[in-house]
């Protein structure tokens, strides 16, 4: 099942700089897209979402952009902080269920 893909397994960013995490999807029927953050031995923690009818949603340091024509979304974190180091999952909602990507491990370098 490759409906949601995160092609970068890892990303390292200097503290204070912008982190950009990317996600691609194939199913046009998804109605919401979400980003979750996951620390080891914990469950995914909801960060931010965007409706399929929007192209941008912002919450503090986190902004999600949606490009429907390209079937692509991205999460921007600015400025990046050491506590942002975690695995980030992109997820897409269709018919109540979430379809997850494989995750990107973000490491913030002090």
């Amino acid at each position, binding site marked *: 099942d490759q409906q949601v893909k995160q092609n970068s397994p890892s990303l390292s960013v200097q503290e204070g700089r912008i982190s950009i995490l990317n996600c691609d999807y194939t199913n046009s029927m998804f109605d919401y897209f979400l980003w*979750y953050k996951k620390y080891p*031995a*914990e469950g995914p923690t*909801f960060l931010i979402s965007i*409706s399929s009818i929007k192209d941008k949603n912002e919450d503090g340091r986190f902004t999600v952009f949606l490009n429907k024509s390209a079937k692509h979304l991205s999460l921007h974190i600015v400025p990046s902080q050491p506590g942002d180091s975690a695995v980030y999952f992109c997820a897409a909602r269709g018919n*109540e*269920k*979430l379809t997850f*990507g*494989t995750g990107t491990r973000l490491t913030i370098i002090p």
Partner: protein
Amino acid sequence: EPEVTQTPSHQVTQMGQEVILRCVPISNHLYFYWYRQILGQKVEFLVSFYNNEISEKSEIFDDQFSVERPDGSNFTLKIRSTKLEDSAMYFCASSEEDRGWQPQHFGDGTRLSIL
């Protein structure tokens, strides 16, 4: 902040045995879910539950699996006769969704190890 709680955190079971994983969703939430993550793989949807019945299930959720809300607070996943390939992290989630779409909130998971 309210959270989804799961017990136990780790369950070790012999193959062929029944196992019950327990979850307490956030109290005012109406939709409940189970997901699993096999080591090194994606988080996969298993089942959603609303108004005391299954609303959607995946092809993984076969006759060996069942869910129940035995009282007003617990939500359980039962695997009747466990197989080695059932070894995974199992995550419970819940969402509000009584006034439009709301995100799913996850528990910290139960690691199920089948021997």
